[in-house]
């Protein structure tokens, strides 16, 4: 419902503040005021998080939630990264950041690879029952993972992987199959069949076509899948808290333990710095690749 200021005839523009014009300006004013409130609500918390992380504890206790730090200090960041006590160890978050990285990177790469092959097989090499197989795989997106926690726990113990990063990788790869398969299958349906047929007539096989024809056509969906999986796995808490131990805990668990532990004086500036560190990787992905990010989130919103 854009107001009609642009289309207004020149004659009216001459008499500057006609009642109609005044109403249009007022409407725009209200619009931008509302947008400013919206922006404040969403951006405010991140600003407060950042500014608090550069303050000293006395300054925080003095109030002034919205104020900039008087004497900005990176002490809280140094503490959060390398010295803060999480549980009984006092080595900061760096080890847990490492845990999250060595968990997320392989899990993301493997699950995206599997999803791409599955999606390609289902979309381009259909067979009787392919639709049923697709439905059976994709239904996994809707299942609340609480319903598999206990048996997964038993299985990981049996395999000797409970409490290890490898165990978490395995679980993220398995439960990543439904979403990545769905994403790639839906995308590959749009790849022209003629290309595949022509290659097959020339004697090209399943994997040759996959690597030489289909994958080069799909950089965007690969990026979407990588972002979606990385965000999901980096931000996961349920599997992390269920199947890790203090030495293999990812960031989300360590952060929650740091902030919500009941021992000692609460160092809010350290908590805020730690929170920013935990959010940074996915936030940076969003800033750099926002467009793909949205596509991934829309596709991934169904999953657990």
């Amino acid at each position, binding site marked *: *419902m854009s107001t009609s200021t642009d289309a207004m005839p020149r004659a009216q523009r001459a008499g500057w503040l006609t009642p109609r014009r005044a109403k249009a300006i007022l409407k725009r004013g209200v619009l931008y005021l509302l947008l400013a409130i*919206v922006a404040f609500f969403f951006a405010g918390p991140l600003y407060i998080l950042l500014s608090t992380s550069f303050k000293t504890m006395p300054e925080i206790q003095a*109030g002034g939630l919205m104020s900039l730090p008087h004497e900005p200090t990176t002490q809280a960041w140094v503490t959060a990264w390398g010295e803060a006590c999480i549980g009984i160890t006092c080595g900061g978050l760096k080890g847990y950041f490492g845990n999250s990285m060595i968990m997320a990177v392989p899990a993301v790469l493997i699950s995206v690879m599997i999803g791409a092959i599955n999606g390609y*097989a289902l979309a381009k090499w259909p067979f009787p029952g392919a639709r049923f197989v697709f439905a059976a795989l994709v239904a996994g997106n809707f299942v609340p993972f609480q319903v598999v926690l206990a048996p*997964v726990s*038993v299985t990981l113990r049996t395999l000797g992987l409970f409490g290890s990063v490898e165990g978490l990788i395995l679980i993220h790869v398995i439960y990543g199959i439904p979403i990545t398969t769905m994403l790639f299958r839906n995308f590959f349906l749009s790849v022209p069949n003629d290309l595949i047929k022509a290659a097959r007539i020339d004697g090209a*096989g399943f994997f040759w076509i996959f690597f030489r024809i289909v994958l080069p056509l799909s950089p965007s969906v690969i990026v979407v899948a990588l972002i979606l999986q990385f965000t999901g796995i980096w931000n996961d808490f*349920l599997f992390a808290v269920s199947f890790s131990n203090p030495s293999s805990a990812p960031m989300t668990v360590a952060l929650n333990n740091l902030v919500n532990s009941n021992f000692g004086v609460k160092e809010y500036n350290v908590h805020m710095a730690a929170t920013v560190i935990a*959010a940074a990787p996915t936030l940076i992905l969003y800033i750099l690749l926002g467009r793909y990010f949205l596509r991934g989130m829309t596709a991934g919103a169904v999953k657990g």
Partner: protein
Amino acid sequence: MRRFLQRHVSQVALSPSLALIAIFLYGFIAYTAAVSTTNSKAFPRFDNFVGLEQYWRLFHTPRWHVAFTNMFLFGGLFLLVTISLGLLIAILIDQRIRAESFFRSIVMYPMAMSFVVTGIIWQWLLNPTLGIEVMVHQLGFESFRLDWLTNPNTVIWALVVAAFWQGCGLVMALFLAGLRGIDEDIWKAAAVDGIPAWRVYVFIVIPMLAPVFLTVVVLLSLSIVRAFDLVVALTNGGPGVSSDLPSVFMFDMAFRRTNLGLSAASAVVMLGTVLAILIPYLYVETRERA
């Protein structure tokens, strides 16, 4: 053998995934359902069949009542707030504004944050001695109270506002895409007839967005049933158990109270809730396509 592989290469490529999902998803759901009919404590055992007794106990456990009711209370409020404000923000952004992508990004960036991070941020903002309450006091409104986190009657609003902050971006984006998909001619025709914009929205545009509403309701409902991290990080179920949700109850029974049978029953009820949302949705979707 080689020829078999070549002819069925598609099935062969899919079979590892299918096997893993058959075991880790369907097999494990069956396993949990089986455990829910036993009296298992710390470890799953199948030699102590008790039928549906765990479900009976579950619905006679006061804490489960709180958790299950909270799911609907939190869910209802979250749906109402997120859908109405998400749509409103999408409409505001759709007014050919300046710096549109700037506003869009600001509404959507919280999507990148985990629920743990979201919970911690809002725990800080809602802290009565350091957060928004103190800020408003310093602005001169001394009587202002924001005690959501410490008041069992209003703690659910803390969950709603945090979940809204995190999830609004996606809802806004879905509505914005829906609004952009609406034929421009409708607006032109309405302008010719001199119909005010709000009436066009209420009587024409919003009804046309019905499929988007359906998608949004289903997506948000699924996330409500699964909500876990946010509660753990923001309120940890408190004060007392007043902000407990089924997922937290389930986790507590399985990993802290060593009551696997009861925990399994609660997990099956969660799955049942998801199916109750999903099956009508899939029914509507497939009927429309057919």
